[in-house]
Protein backbone atom coordinates (compact mmCIF):
# COMPACT_ATOMS: atom_id res chain seq x y z
CA UNK A 1 0.00 0.00 0.00
CA UNK A 2 1.29 3.42 -0.96
CA UNK A 3 3.36 5.19 1.64
CA UNK A 4 2.71 8.90 1.96
CA UNK A 5 4.78 11.82 3.06
CA UNK A 6 3.30 13.58 6.06
CA UNK A 7 4.29 16.98 7.39
CA UNK A 8 2.70 18.43 10.49
CA UNK A 9 3.56 20.61 13.43
CA UNK A 10 3.72 19.38 17.00
CA UNK A 11 4.16 21.90 19.80
CA UNK A 12 5.21 24.48 17.24
CA UNK A 13 7.89 22.35 15.58
CA UNK A 14 7.60 20.77 12.13
CA UNK A 15 7.91 17.02 11.76
CA UNK A 16 7.92 15.06 8.55
CA UNK A 17 7.64 11.34 8.06
CA UNK A 18 6.36 8.67 5.76
CA UNK A 19 3.52 6.36 6.63
CA UNK A 20 0.88 4.11 5.20
CA UNK A 21 -2.60 5.64 5.29
CA UNK A 22 -3.61 3.11 7.94
CA UNK A 23 -1.05 4.42 10.44
CA UNK A 24 -2.83 5.93 13.41
CA UNK A 25 -1.87 9.45 14.38
CA UNK A 26 -1.07 8.21 17.91
CA UNK A 27 1.50 5.79 16.48
CA UNK A 28 2.92 8.41 14.11
CA UNK A 29 3.46 10.81 17.01
CA UNK A 30 5.18 8.14 19.07
CA UNK A 31 7.10 6.14 16.49
CA UNK A 32 7.85 8.60 13.71
CA UNK A 33 8.10 11.84 15.64
CA UNK A 34 9.65 10.21 18.72
CA UNK A 35 7.28 11.92 21.12
CA UNK A 36 6.31 9.10 23.44
CA UNK A 37 4.51 11.24 26.01
CA UNK A 38 1.24 10.58 24.20
CA UNK A 39 0.15 7.20 25.52
CA UNK A 40 -1.82 4.49 23.79
CA UNK A 41 -4.32 2.60 25.89
CA UNK A 42 -7.39 1.09 24.29
CA UNK A 43 -6.95 2.16 20.65
CA UNK A 44 -10.66 2.44 20.10
CA UNK A 45 -11.51 5.79 21.56
CA UNK A 46 -12.61 4.84 25.06
CA UNK A 47 -9.75 5.49 27.47
CA UNK A 48 -8.57 8.98 26.47
CA UNK A 49 -4.87 8.28 27.17
CA UNK A 50 -3.95 9.43 23.64
CA UNK A 51 -5.78 12.79 23.90
CA UNK A 52 -3.93 15.58 22.08
CA UNK A 53 -4.98 18.95 20.69
CA UNK A 54 -5.55 19.03 16.93
CA UNK A 55 -5.75 22.62 15.72
CA UNK A 56 -6.54 23.44 19.33
CA UNK A 57 -9.34 20.92 19.91
CA UNK A 58 -8.96 17.97 22.28
CA UNK A 59 -9.24 14.78 20.23
CA UNK A 60 -8.35 11.13 20.51
CA UNK A 61 -5.25 10.60 18.37
CA UNK A 62 -6.00 6.86 18.05
CA UNK A 63 -9.15 7.72 16.08
CA UNK A 64 -7.32 9.68 13.40
CA UNK A 65 -5.07 8.48 10.65
CA UNK A 66 -1.76 10.29 10.48
CA UNK A 67 -2.46 11.30 6.86
CA UNK A 68 -5.47 13.25 8.08
CA UNK A 69 -3.22 15.48 10.19
CA UNK A 70 -1.17 16.63 7.19
CA UNK A 71 -0.60 20.36 7.67
CA UNK A 72 -2.22 20.40 11.12
CA UNK A 73 -1.02 21.98 14.34
CA UNK A 74 -0.88 19.48 17.21
CA UNK A 75 -0.17 19.97 20.87
CA UNK A 76 1.05 17.09 23.01
CA UNK A 77 2.07 16.75 26.64
CA UNK A 78 5.69 17.54 25.69
CA UNK A 79 4.58 21.07 24.84
CA UNK A 80 3.42 21.86 28.36
CA UNK A 81 6.53 22.29 30.49
CA UNK A 82 8.97 25.11 29.82
CA UNK A 83 12.28 23.36 30.34
CA UNK A 84 12.31 22.19 33.95
CA UNK A 85 9.44 24.46 34.89
CA UNK A 86 6.19 22.55 34.99
CA UNK A 87 3.11 24.00 33.35
CA UNK A 88 0.67 25.30 36.00
CA UNK A 89 -1.66 22.39 35.19
CA UNK A 90 1.14 19.87 35.66
CA UNK A 91 2.16 21.60 38.88
CA UNK A 92 -1.40 21.35 40.18
CA UNK A 93 -1.53 17.64 39.34
CA UNK A 94 1.72 17.11 41.24
CA UNK A 95 0.63 19.23 44.20
CA UNK A 96 -2.67 17.37 44.53
CA UNK A 97 -1.36 13.82 43.96
CA UNK A 98 -3.50 13.55 40.84
CA UNK A 99 -1.43 10.72 39.43
CA UNK A 100 -0.15 7.40 40.63
CA UNK A 101 1.12 5.20 37.81
CA UNK A 102 0.91 8.15 35.43
CA UNK A 103 -0.14 6.23 32.34
CA UNK A 104 -3.36 8.17 31.84
CA UNK A 105 -1.87 11.51 32.90
CA UNK A 106 -0.83 12.92 29.49
CA UNK A 107 -4.37 12.52 28.22
CA UNK A 108 -5.84 14.10 31.34
CA UNK A 109 -3.41 17.02 31.09
CA UNK A 110 -4.32 17.75 27.48
CA UNK A 111 -8.04 17.50 28.21
CA UNK A 112 -7.54 19.85 31.16
CA UNK A 113 -5.57 22.30 29.01
CA UNK A 114 -8.39 22.64 26.47
CA UNK A 115 -11.01 22.74 29.22
CA UNK A 116 -9.43 25.56 31.20
CA UNK A 117 -8.59 27.54 28.08
CA UNK A 118 -12.26 27.45 26.98
CA UNK A 119 -13.91 27.57 30.41
CA UNK A 120 -11.82 29.48 32.94
CA UNK A 121 -14.52 29.40 35.61
CA UNK A 122 -16.13 26.06 36.23
CA UNK A 123 -17.97 24.05 38.82
CA UNK A 124 -16.99 20.63 40.11
CA UNK A 125 -19.76 19.19 37.93
CA UNK A 126 -18.24 20.89 34.87
CA UNK A 127 -14.87 19.37 35.73
CA UNK A 128 -16.27 15.88 36.17
CA UNK A 129 -18.25 16.16 32.96
CA UNK A 130 -15.18 17.29 31.02
CA UNK A 131 -12.95 14.56 32.46
CA UNK A 132 -15.48 11.80 31.80
CA UNK A 133 -13.76 10.89 28.54
CA UNK A 134 -10.50 9.99 30.29
CA UNK A 135 -10.11 6.83 32.34
CA UNK A 136 -7.82 6.53 35.37
CA UNK A 137 -7.51 3.16 37.13
CA UNK A 138 -5.42 4.37 40.09
CA UNK A 139 -6.59 7.59 41.65
CA UNK A 140 -10.34 7.28 41.97
CA UNK A 141 -10.46 10.71 40.29
CA UNK A 142 -10.91 12.75 43.48
CA UNK A 143 -7.37 14.13 43.37
CA UNK A 144 -7.61 14.82 39.65
CA UNK A 145 -10.77 16.86 40.14
CA UNK A 146 -9.06 18.76 42.96
CA UNK A 147 -6.01 19.39 40.78
CA UNK A 148 -8.10 20.75 37.92
CA UNK A 149 -9.96 23.06 40.30
CA UNK A 150 -6.62 24.29 41.68
CA UNK A 151 -5.20 24.74 38.18
CA UNK A 152 -8.29 26.68 37.17
CA UNK A 153 -7.80 29.03 40.12
CA UNK A 154 -4.09 29.42 39.37
CA UNK A 155 -4.71 30.20 35.71
CA UNK A 156 -7.62 32.55 36.44
CA UNK A 157 -5.36 34.56 38.73
CA UNK A 158 -3.55 35.88 35.68
CA UNK A 159 -0.17 34.83 37.04
CA UNK A 160 0.50 32.58 34.03
CA UNK A 161 0.03 34.62 30.86
CA UNK A 162 2.00 32.05 28.86
CA UNK A 163 -0.17 29.07 29.85
CA UNK A 164 -1.69 28.68 26.38
CA UNK A 165 1.03 28.76 23.72
CA UNK A 166 -0.03 29.41 20.12
CA UNK A 167 -0.06 25.72 19.22
CA UNK A 168 -2.60 25.08 21.98
CA UNK A 169 -5.12 27.66 20.75
CA UNK A 170 -8.31 26.90 18.97
CA UNK A 171 -8.56 27.60 15.24
CA UNK A 172 -12.22 28.34 15.74
CA UNK A 173 -15.56 26.67 15.63
CA UNK A 174 -15.90 24.56 12.53
CA UNK A 175 -18.98 26.52 11.48
CA UNK A 176 -16.62 29.07 9.96
CA UNK A 177 -15.11 27.38 6.90
CA UNK A 178 -13.42 30.57 5.70
CA UNK A 179 -11.29 30.71 8.82
CA UNK A 180 -10.29 27.09 8.54
CA UNK A 181 -9.39 27.60 4.90
CA UNK A 182 -7.19 30.56 5.76
CA UNK A 183 -5.48 28.45 8.38
CA UNK A 184 -4.99 25.63 5.89
CA UNK A 185 -3.55 28.00 3.31
CA UNK A 186 -1.26 29.45 5.92
CA UNK A 187 -0.06 25.94 6.75
CA UNK A 188 0.68 25.31 3.09
CA UNK A 189 2.52 28.60 2.80
CA UNK A 190 4.64 27.80 5.81
CA UNK A 191 5.59 24.48 4.35
CA UNK A 192 6.68 25.93 1.03
CA UNK A 193 8.76 28.70 2.60
CA UNK A 194 10.27 26.38 5.16
CA UNK A 195 9.74 29.02 7.81
CA UNK A 196 7.94 26.55 10.03
CA UNK A 197 11.00 24.51 10.83
CA UNK A 198 12.05 26.80 13.66
CA UNK A 199 10.24 26.39 16.91
CA UNK A 200 7.89 29.20 17.74
CA UNK A 201 8.55 30.97 21.00
CA UNK A 202 6.37 29.79 23.88
CA UNK A 203 5.46 33.24 25.06
CA UNK A 204 3.35 35.62 23.06
Amino acid at each position, binding site marked *: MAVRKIALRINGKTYTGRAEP*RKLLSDFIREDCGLTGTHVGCEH*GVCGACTILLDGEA*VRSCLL*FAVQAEGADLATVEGLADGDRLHPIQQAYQDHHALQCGFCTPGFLMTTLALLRDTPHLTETDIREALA*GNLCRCTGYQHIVAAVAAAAAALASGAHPDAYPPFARRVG*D*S*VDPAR*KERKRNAANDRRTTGAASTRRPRRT
Partner: protein
Amino acid sequence: MKPAAFEYHAPRTVDEALALLDAHGDEAKVLAGGQSLVPMMNMRLARPGVVVDINRLPALDYLTLDGGALRIGALCRQRAVERSALTAEHCPLLRDAVRLIGHLQIRNRGTVVGSIAHADPAAEMTAALTILGGEVTATGPGGERTIDADELFVSYLTTSLDPRELITEARFPVLPAGAGWSWTEIARRHGDFALVGVGVVLSVRAGVVADARIALTGVGPTPVRATHAERALAGAAPGDALWEQAAEAVRAEVEPDDDIHASAAYRRHVAGVLTGRALAEAHGRAREAA
Protein backbone atom coordinates in the same frame (compact mmCIF):
# COMPACT_ATOMS: atom_id res chain seq x y z
CA MET B 1 -5.87 -2.97 17.23
CA LYS B 2 -4.44 -1.66 13.98
CA PRO B 3 -6.61 -1.18 10.92
CA ALA B 4 -6.13 -3.28 7.81
CA ALA B 5 -4.53 -1.58 4.81
CA PHE B 6 -6.73 0.58 2.62
CA GLU B 7 -6.47 3.01 -0.26
CA TYR B 8 -6.83 6.57 0.97
CA HIS B 9 -8.30 9.54 -0.86
CA ALA B 10 -8.78 13.07 0.44
CA PRO B 11 -10.76 14.81 -2.30
CA ARG B 12 -10.70 18.61 -2.48
CA THR B 13 -14.13 19.03 -4.03
CA VAL B 14 -17.52 17.41 -3.48
CA ASP B 15 -17.57 16.36 -7.14
CA GLU B 16 -14.25 14.62 -6.70
CA ALA B 17 -15.60 12.82 -3.61
CA LEU B 18 -18.69 11.70 -5.52
CA ALA B 19 -16.57 10.47 -8.43
CA LEU B 20 -14.53 8.34 -6.00
CA LEU B 21 -17.67 6.88 -4.43
CA ASP B 22 -19.06 6.19 -7.88
CA ALA B 23 -15.86 4.46 -8.95
CA HIS B 24 -15.46 2.30 -5.84
CA GLY B 25 -19.08 1.59 -4.88
CA ASP B 26 -19.48 -0.50 -1.75
CA GLU B 27 -15.70 -1.01 -1.48
CA ALA B 28 -15.49 2.57 -0.24
CA LYS B 29 -16.37 4.10 3.11
CA VAL B 30 -16.78 7.81 3.72
CA LEU B 31 -14.61 9.11 6.55
CA ALA B 32 -15.96 12.24 8.27
CA GLY B 33 -15.39 12.48 12.04
CA GLY B 34 -14.32 8.86 12.16
CA GLN B 35 -15.53 8.34 15.73
CA SER B 36 -17.48 5.22 14.76
CA LEU B 37 -15.66 4.14 11.61
CA VAL B 38 -12.10 4.28 12.94
CA PRO B 39 -12.77 2.22 16.11
CA MET B 40 -14.47 -0.36 13.90
CA MET B 41 -11.46 -0.35 11.57
CA ASN B 42 -9.04 -0.58 14.49
CA MET B 43 -10.90 -3.64 15.72
CA ARG B 44 -11.13 -4.90 12.13
CA LEU B 45 -14.88 -5.09 12.34
CA ALA B 46 -14.72 -2.89 9.26
CA ARG B 47 -12.15 -3.38 6.50
CA PRO B 48 -13.01 -0.97 3.71
CA GLY B 49 -10.76 -1.26 0.67
CA VAL B 50 -11.03 2.45 0.01
CA VAL B 51 -11.48 5.36 2.42
CA VAL B 52 -12.80 8.64 1.07
CA ASP B 53 -11.88 11.29 3.63
CA ILE B 54 -14.20 14.29 3.32
CA ASN B 55 -12.35 16.37 5.92
CA ARG B 56 -10.75 18.53 3.21
CA LEU B 57 -14.14 19.74 1.99
CA PRO B 58 -14.70 22.95 3.95
CA ALA B 59 -17.72 23.69 1.74
CA LEU B 60 -19.57 21.02 3.77
CA ASP B 61 -18.70 22.62 7.11
CA TYR B 62 -21.64 24.84 7.93
CA LEU B 63 -24.58 25.33 10.26
CA THR B 64 -27.25 27.79 9.16
CA LEU B 65 -30.88 28.59 9.83
CA ASP B 66 -32.89 28.55 6.66
CA GLY B 67 -36.60 28.13 5.96
CA GLY B 68 -37.53 27.00 9.45
CA ALA B 69 -34.82 24.38 9.71
CA LEU B 70 -31.24 24.13 10.89
CA ARG B 71 -29.14 23.07 7.93
CA ILE B 72 -26.10 21.11 9.01
CA GLY B 73 -23.38 20.31 6.50
CA ALA B 74 -21.70 16.92 6.39
CA LEU B 75 -18.51 18.23 7.96
CA CYS B 76 -20.05 20.24 10.79
CA ARG B 77 -18.71 18.83 14.07
CA GLN B 78 -21.05 17.85 16.87
CA ARG B 79 -19.21 20.25 19.17
CA ALA B 80 -19.95 23.16 16.83
CA VAL B 81 -23.65 22.29 16.89
CA GLU B 82 -23.51 22.03 20.69
CA ARG B 83 -21.85 25.44 21.03
CA SER B 84 -23.93 27.23 18.41
CA ALA B 85 -26.26 30.04 19.48
CA LEU B 86 -28.54 29.04 16.59
CA THR B 87 -29.02 25.58 18.04
CA ALA B 88 -29.67 26.93 21.54
CA GLU B 89 -32.25 29.42 20.32
CA HIS B 90 -34.10 27.46 17.66
CA CYS B 91 -33.56 23.82 18.45
CA PRO B 92 -32.62 23.28 22.11
CA LEU B 93 -33.77 19.67 21.80
CA LEU B 94 -30.95 19.06 19.33
CA ARG B 95 -28.44 20.81 21.60
CA ASP B 96 -29.49 18.67 24.57
CA ALA B 97 -29.24 15.50 22.50
CA VAL B 98 -25.82 16.41 21.05
CA ARG B 99 -24.44 17.07 24.53
CA LEU B 100 -25.00 13.42 25.40
CA ILE B 101 -22.98 12.05 22.47
CA GLY B 102 -19.86 10.34 23.82
CA HIS B 103 -17.40 12.73 25.40
CA LEU B 104 -16.15 16.14 24.35
CA GLN B 105 -13.12 14.64 22.60
CA ILE B 106 -15.55 12.59 20.51
CA ARG B 107 -17.80 15.58 19.78
CA ASN B 108 -14.83 17.73 18.78
CA ARG B 109 -14.30 15.36 15.90
CA GLY B 110 -17.58 13.56 15.28
CA THR B 111 -20.12 15.01 12.87
CA VAL B 112 -23.91 15.10 13.15
CA VAL B 113 -24.33 13.89 9.59
CA GLY B 114 -21.82 11.09 10.10
CA SER B 115 -23.78 9.82 13.06
CA ILE B 116 -26.95 9.85 10.96
CA ALA B 117 -25.25 7.99 8.10
CA HIS B 118 -23.89 5.41 10.55
CA ALA B 119 -27.50 4.79 11.62
CA ASP B 120 -26.87 3.27 15.02
CA PRO B 121 -30.36 3.11 16.58
CA ALA B 122 -28.80 3.78 19.99
CA ALA B 123 -27.35 7.08 18.75
CA GLU B 124 -28.97 10.38 19.65
CA MET B 125 -28.81 11.94 16.18
CA THR B 126 -30.92 9.27 14.51
CA ALA B 127 -33.81 9.79 16.93
CA ALA B 128 -33.35 13.58 16.91
CA LEU B 129 -33.77 13.63 13.14
CA THR B 130 -36.78 11.34 13.48
CA ILE B 131 -38.62 13.28 16.18
CA LEU B 132 -38.12 16.63 14.47
CA GLY B 133 -39.34 15.28 11.15
CA GLY B 134 -35.99 16.03 9.57
CA GLU B 135 -34.54 15.00 6.27
CA VAL B 136 -31.20 14.69 4.53
CA THR B 137 -29.87 15.57 1.13
CA ALA B 138 -28.10 12.65 -0.51
CA THR B 139 -25.93 13.43 -3.51
CA GLY B 140 -24.87 10.73 -5.91
CA PRO B 141 -24.43 9.83 -9.57
CA GLY B 142 -28.08 10.68 -10.26
CA GLY B 143 -27.86 14.09 -8.62
CA GLU B 144 -29.43 15.18 -5.36
CA ARG B 145 -32.40 13.66 -3.60
CA THR B 146 -34.14 14.34 -0.33
CA ILE B 147 -34.70 11.46 2.07
CA ASP B 148 -37.01 11.74 5.10
CA ALA B 149 -35.79 10.33 8.38
CA ASP B 150 -38.48 7.64 8.24
CA GLU B 151 -37.26 6.44 4.86
CA LEU B 152 -33.58 6.77 5.67
CA PHE B 153 -33.25 4.41 8.62
CA VAL B 154 -33.80 0.82 7.52
CA SER B 155 -32.24 -1.30 10.27
CA TYR B 156 -29.19 -1.57 12.53
CA LEU B 157 -26.39 0.41 10.88
CA THR B 158 -28.33 0.29 7.62
CA THR B 159 -29.78 3.15 5.62
CA SER B 160 -31.55 3.44 2.30
CA LEU B 161 -28.51 5.26 0.89
CA ASP B 162 -26.81 3.93 -2.19
CA PRO B 163 -23.07 3.30 -1.52
CA ARG B 164 -22.33 5.84 -4.24
CA GLU B 165 -24.28 8.53 -2.42
CA LEU B 166 -22.97 11.03 0.11
CA ILE B 167 -25.22 12.74 2.64
CA THR B 168 -24.19 16.33 2.10
CA GLU B 169 -26.63 17.93 4.52
CA ALA B 170 -29.13 17.17 7.27
CA ARG B 171 -32.04 19.48 8.02
CA PHE B 172 -33.60 19.63 11.49
CA PRO B 173 -36.84 21.64 11.61
CA VAL B 174 -36.84 24.16 14.44
CA LEU B 175 -39.15 23.61 17.40
CA PRO B 176 -42.66 25.06 16.95
CA ALA B 177 -43.25 28.32 18.81
CA GLY B 178 -44.27 27.64 22.40
CA ALA B 179 -43.40 23.96 22.28
CA GLY B 180 -41.71 22.30 25.23
CA TRP B 181 -39.03 19.69 24.74
CA SER B 182 -37.02 17.13 26.62
CA TRP B 183 -34.21 14.74 25.87
CA THR B 184 -33.45 12.18 28.51
CA GLU B 185 -31.59 8.91 28.59
CA ILE B 186 -30.05 6.27 30.80
CA ALA B 187 -26.54 4.91 30.25
CA ARG B 188 -24.39 2.59 32.34
CA ARG B 189 -21.64 5.19 32.47
CA HIS B 190 -21.64 8.84 31.50
CA GLY B 191 -20.77 9.09 27.81
CA ASP B 192 -21.67 5.50 26.96
CA PHE B 193 -24.32 4.73 24.42
CA ALA B 194 -27.64 5.05 26.19
CA LEU B 195 -29.53 1.86 27.00
CA VAL B 196 -32.66 3.83 26.20
CA GLY B 197 -33.10 7.46 25.19
CA VAL B 198 -36.33 9.42 24.87
CA GLY B 199 -37.01 12.70 23.12
CA VAL B 200 -40.26 14.61 23.52
CA VAL B 201 -41.74 17.67 21.82
CA LEU B 202 -45.00 18.87 23.36
CA SER B 203 -47.38 21.71 22.51
CA VAL B 204 -50.29 22.67 24.75
CA ARG B 205 -53.15 24.89 23.61
CA ALA B 206 -56.38 25.78 25.43
CA GLY B 207 -55.52 23.47 28.30
CA VAL B 208 -55.02 20.32 26.26
CA VAL B 209 -52.13 18.67 24.45
CA ALA B 210 -52.27 20.00 20.90
CA ASP B 211 -49.33 18.04 19.56
CA ALA B 212 -47.01 15.46 21.07
CA ARG B 213 -44.07 13.72 19.51
CA ILE B 214 -42.06 10.98 21.18
CA ALA B 215 -39.00 9.24 19.75
CA LEU B 216 -36.80 6.62 21.37
CA THR B 217 -33.30 5.22 20.92
CA GLY B 218 -32.17 1.75 21.87
CA VAL B 219 -35.49 -0.05 21.64
CA GLY B 220 -35.37 -1.42 18.11
CA PRO B 221 -33.37 -1.68 14.89
CA THR B 222 -34.12 1.95 14.01
CA PRO B 223 -35.07 5.05 16.01
CA VAL B 224 -38.72 4.59 16.97
CA ARG B 225 -41.63 7.04 17.02
CA ALA B 226 -44.12 6.07 19.75
CA THR B 227 -47.21 6.71 17.66
CA HIS B 228 -49.68 5.00 19.99
CA ALA B 229 -48.52 7.08 22.91
CA GLU B 230 -48.63 10.22 20.77
CA ARG B 231 -52.25 9.52 19.89
CA ALA B 232 -53.12 8.89 23.53
CA LEU B 233 -51.75 12.32 24.41
CA ALA B 234 -53.44 14.35 21.68
CA GLY B 235 -56.40 16.35 22.95
CA ALA B 236 -56.01 15.20 26.57
CA ALA B 237 -55.47 17.30 29.68
CA PRO B 238 -51.77 17.37 30.67
CA GLY B 239 -50.74 15.97 34.04
CA ASP B 240 -49.18 13.04 35.83
CA ALA B 241 -52.08 10.70 35.06
CA LEU B 242 -51.71 11.39 31.34
CA TRP B 243 -47.94 10.97 31.42
CA GLU B 244 -48.37 7.59 33.08
CA GLN B 245 -50.91 6.59 30.45
CA ALA B 246 -48.43 7.57 27.72
CA ALA B 247 -45.66 5.67 29.50
CA GLU B 248 -47.82 2.55 29.50
CA ALA B 249 -48.54 3.01 25.80
CA VAL B 250 -44.80 3.25 25.10
CA ARG B 251 -44.12 0.07 27.07
CA ALA B 252 -46.79 -1.69 25.05
CA GLU B 253 -45.56 -0.56 21.65
CA VAL B 254 -41.75 -0.80 21.82
CA GLU B 255 -40.04 -4.08 20.99
CA PRO B 256 -36.52 -3.91 22.40
CA ASP B 257 -34.03 -6.77 22.19
CA ASP B 258 -31.91 -8.38 24.88
CA ASP B 259 -28.23 -7.74 24.64
CA ILE B 260 -25.15 -7.84 26.84
CA HIS B 261 -25.97 -4.40 28.25
CA ALA B 262 -29.61 -4.84 29.30
CA SER B 263 -32.55 -7.19 28.99
CA ALA B 264 -35.51 -6.40 26.79
CA ALA B 265 -37.76 -6.25 29.86
CA TYR B 266 -35.50 -3.68 31.52
CA ARG B 267 -35.37 -1.56 28.40
CA ARG B 268 -39.14 -1.68 28.06
CA HIS B 269 -39.59 -0.62 31.68
CA VAL B 270 -37.05 2.19 31.39
CA ALA B 271 -38.61 3.41 28.13
CA GLY B 272 -41.82 4.03 30.05
CA VAL B 273 -40.14 5.69 33.02
CA LEU B 274 -38.11 8.02 30.80
CA THR B 275 -41.16 8.85 28.70
CA GLY B 276 -43.03 9.97 31.82
CA ARG B 277 -40.11 12.11 32.98
CA ALA B 278 -39.55 13.60 29.54
CA LEU B 279 -43.23 14.51 29.14
CA ALA B 280 -43.27 16.22 32.54
CA GLU B 281 -40.14 18.18 31.72
CA ALA B 282 -41.39 19.15 28.25
CA HIS B 283 -44.70 20.25 29.71
CA GLY B 284 -42.93 22.43 32.26
CA ARG B 285 -40.98 24.12 29.48
CA ALA B 286 -44.10 24.58 27.37
CA ARG B 287 -45.76 26.33 30.32
CA GLU B 288 -42.73 28.59 30.76
CA ALA B 289 -42.91 29.50 27.09
CA ALA B 290 -46.64 30.27 27.24
